[in-house]
């Protein structure tokens, strides 16, 4: 690992100071504060639908961070998959489980103090660790690192097999989700030949 770190050639402690941030850093920090704040609100608000919307803010902010880190393709995938589908799925989930609109007093479980303690402890531990380890590391952002072209090249030259395996996984998840959400009621199933009667029956019910 240390050889890898040295190869990156990014250990130049004297040159970079935290007191003189670059423009990218300032933007990164501002957006980071936004992301963090949205995440915190998302996990603490008592309005369930608002939590999902604040999650949108946090994930969108993260997409901006990816852009700032020059990972363009990942940023767009983030916007497409997360903002476009996952959040929508979550909203559907909330509605299908009849989540109340407005403030619900029992949004948090009785486990909250312990959760707070564990969260703070893990934050403190990890921040200490990360700061201690990467205090003086510097990311050189010059040059394209994550353009769509570049991403396509390495993805389909080096990562083809995992990519294909992942598509099988997605298919399995799809099938699994269908199996899980299917109702056990056979009468509601449409059968060949008497589609109409089945539909009317299900309507009557």
């Amino acid at each position: 690992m240390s050889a890898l770190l040295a190869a990156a050639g990014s250990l130049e402690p004297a040159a970079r100071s935290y007191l003189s941030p670059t423009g990218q850093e300032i933007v990164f920090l501002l957006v980071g504060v936004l992301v963090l704040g949205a995440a915190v609100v998302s996990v603490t608000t008592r309005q369930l639908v608002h939590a999902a919307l604040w999650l949108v803010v946090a994930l969108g902010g993260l997409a901006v961070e990816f852009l700032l880190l020059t990972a363009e393709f990942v940023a767009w995938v983030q916007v497409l998959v997360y903002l476009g589908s996952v959040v929508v799925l979550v909203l559907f989930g909330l509605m299908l489980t009849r989540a109340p609109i407005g403030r619900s007093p029992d949004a948090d479980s009785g486990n909250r103090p312990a959760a707070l303690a564990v969260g703070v402890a893990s934050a403190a531990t990890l921040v200490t660790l990360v700061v201690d380890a990467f205090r003086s590391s510097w990311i050189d952002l010059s040059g394209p690192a994550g353009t769509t072209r570049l991403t396509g090249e390495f993805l389909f030259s080096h990562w083809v097999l995992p990519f294909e395996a992942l598509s099988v996984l997605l298919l399995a998840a799809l099938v699994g989700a269908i199996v899980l959400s299917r109702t056990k009621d056979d009468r509601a199933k449409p059968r060949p030949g008497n589609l109409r009667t089945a539909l009317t029956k299900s309507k009557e019910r």
Partner: protein
Amino acid sequence: MNLALPILVPVLPALGAAAGLATGRRYPGLARPLAVLPVATAAVLALVTALQLGTGATLDAATRLAPTGGPEISLALHLDGFTSLISVLVGLVATCVQIYSTAYLKDDPRYPSYAALVSLFTAAMFLVVYSGDLIVLLVGWEVMGICSYFLIGHHWETADARAASLKAFLVTKLGDVPFLFGLFLLGADAGTFRIGEVLRTAADGGLHHPTLIALLLLAGVAGKSAQFPLHTWLPDAMAGPTPVSALIHAATMVAAGIYLVARLLPVFLQSSAALVVLAVMAAVTMVGSALCALAQDDLKRVLAYSTVGQLGYMAGALASGDRQAAVFHLVSHGAFKALLFLGAGVVIHAAHTNSLSAMARMDGLRHRIQDAQWTMAIGLLALAGVFPFSGFFSKESVLTAAEHAAHGEALTGSLGPASAVPTAVGWTVLVAGLLTALLTAAYALRLWLAVFYGRSRNGKDLAPQAGAPYSPEIDEADPAHLEPAAMRLTLWVLAVPALAFGLAGLRTDWLPALLDGESLRVSFATGVLGTGTAAAGVLIAWAAWRTVNARAAAGQQPADPARLLLGPLYRPAQHGFGVDQLYSAVFVRPTEAAARLVRFLDRAVVETYVRGAGAAPGWLGRAVRFAQTGNAQGYLTALLAGAVLLAVLVAVRS
């Protein structure tokens, strides 16, 4: 001579016992012949062996039993005058006891096993007598111990019998442990277990620790022959059936100890200290047991204490270095004590009680059981040592031996120098013997008068007192009938040696020739002294009896003549001078307290650990159950908290 004869003597009763035990349950009819015939045959064979051997001859034969690393153990046979005499006595008494038992225990459901054990007992005693090897002798010695345990506990339904059998076993074993060590030490010192070679080594002074060996052996002898510190089992052993008492007291168990010392007397002569211990033991035993005998109310306990006292005589003779006198007294005592016990059995059978004071209030016992009256008279006269009964000669020979020892010229014969016996031993035994002669005569007369000359106060028999000793055999016979012939005739058979043994033996001089060859003639001084004290004892007892009867006639509460004679000693003597209480306080209670402590420790401490080992996981499991809420969030919290904790710990450590 034919070796098969002496070998068959111990083997036959043992085979009879095995056969009796094997067939007793299925064919009860065989029990009686299987009991009597082997023992009677063995008795005849013993007599034939003795006659073939003749006087003054010895026979030694041995076959090696097993090669050992150390001193070898061999199946050795040793026959001489002593073994002849004692084996004939054992055969006679055992046969009488077996015949007597066929009638006495006629209706007993456990008769087959009883008879088999008596046979085994006899076989063991034969083995002890004939054995020429110490280890083989020890086998017979221990077989007798276990047989006595079973036979004394024959009436195991009663608590008395159970306690008495246990006590007999434990007390004799208490002596047997040092005895065993003594035998090993003797074998190690002499390099052999063959008695003949041991004695030769001892006579040459080849033993390294004679005093230690002699004292260790004495412990076993004291246990087996009921000498002073370990005598307490014998009076309690009366809980067994009366024929067993006769067997134990006359011919087998108690005789074994005396016989052993007689055989190994050269070893004892090597150590003056052991002789002094033996003499003191004998003197204390003699006088103490005679006092106790005078105070007892139970007929059989009187006889038991009398046995202890007579064994004291024998031990005294051995301490004086004269084994002839000891064995002479052993044989004559065996005859008259067997007679007395069997007679006592008849009396108890007829009177339905053991209690002397109850018998003293019964009219006409002497008319109902005249056989017992006269034979017991012979036995008691022999016991008291009245001329010309056998007891007179044997007791006087003991006193003569003591007198010689007191003058420094002990009758050790060819076994060792006369100077080996300290004069103090002689004096001790002599004084104690004379005192005991007085007391013996007194209690013999008291017994006789109380049993056969009782007078009913109100013209009818009284029930036994509430506190009278319980006789387990009470209802075994109908009092209206005469006692069976098997019981009466054996009394007369035994009365013959009790009457004539001493006279016949000494008139023709065959007895001394059979033994060590020394004269057994009574010296004039002790003869006069012994007879005089015995006569005095008789007179005193008679006077006391008259006084008591006169008082009773005057309307006062009738009393025991012993109470008059003993005065303040009466109550302690009745209770054996508190030796039992002493043992109970010194040994039994501390042992029980220790056992209770151990029990407490086991129950309260050790078991608590065990229970705790079971309960702690139980409680732990119950506590852990509370964590199993089924709430996945809680589990996850604990998991992550643990992970963070571990990370922190690792970070802090490194």
